[in-house]
């Protein structure tokens, strides 16, 4: 990901009408936006729709962006809001029940399948957390945002962010530790 100063330069160029500058911003933040939206929504297709809504909404609101602040948290706030709005509108289904074979540690034919199985478990575990909790832990442990930045993105106090990350980690780390014990 580019530096904050580069982001601001790209924002200025976009505001001046340079289409390609916005394209570079999208390339930089696409993966992050899709992951964050997926953390909120669960379903990858819904997440991509929400991430797209977020980018286009950010484009329209770009003149409102305060260039004294980093671009990433501002964009992620818009993406997270777009995902939350989409979830409310469509009443997105909850995570599907866990396959008993996965819970019981079924056969693991190869490494790819093992990784896939761990991913499914983590997604299910994320789905059991509240939306705010799973978004907070993904923004912190996956995307590397600070507690203060996450507080700004989610619009909640910093202390609440710490609490949400703590509870999410406790659940997810337990699952990860169990997984490592079972792994061959």
């Amino acid at each position: 990901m580019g530096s904050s100063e580069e982001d601001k330069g790209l924002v200025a160029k976009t505001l001046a009408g340079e289409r390609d500058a916005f394209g570079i911003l999208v390339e930089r933040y696409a993966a992050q936006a899709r992951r964050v939206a997926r953390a909120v929504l669960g379903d990858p297709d819904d997440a991509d729709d929400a991430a797209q809504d977020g980018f286009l909404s950010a484009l329209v609101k770009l003149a409102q962006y305060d260039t004294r602040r980093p671009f990433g948290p501002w964009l992620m706030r818009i993406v997270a809001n777009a995902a939350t709005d989409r979830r409310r509108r469509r009443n997105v289904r909850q995570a599907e029940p866990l396959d008993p074979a996965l819970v019981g540690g079924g056969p693991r034919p190869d490494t790819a399948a093992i990784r896939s199985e761990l991913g499914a478990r983590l997604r299910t575990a994320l789905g059991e957390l509240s939306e705010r909790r799973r978004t907070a832990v993904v923004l912190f442990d996956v995307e590397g945002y600070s507690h203060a930045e996450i507080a700004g993105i989610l619009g909640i106090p910093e202390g609440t962010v710490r609490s949400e990350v703590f509870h999410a980690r406790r659940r997810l780390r337990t699952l990860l530790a169990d997984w490592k014990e079972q792994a061959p």
Partner: protein
Amino acid sequence: MKDSQAFDHRPDPELGAALRAALEPKDDQKAFVVRIMAQYERALDRATIPTLDVLASWFRPGIAAAAAALIAGFLLGRTVLTPAPASIDAAMAPLEGPGLAALVTAQDPPDASVVFTSLVDQR
């Protein structure tokens, strides 16, 4: 796992990597970028066309201003068209002679007979 680990203020690389792998889109990122950029012009066009919400937000103050102008016009018209009430001087002016004004402005209290005579004379 100890709770103190969960309170760590630093990102957890192991958990972060596992979550990243779980949430990572499987398809090509470029296709997603192309998909967004295909909407670029349309999004900007939509932003420049006033939506119904914007029109509605203009409509409400317009209605309020019109109502205020109507009320102001009514009050102004009523003030202009209604005749002014008679002044106290006009009310107290005698038809003939000193009458009531003389009684009210006198230094000494009037004699009752004079008051009654004055009233009877005015009838």
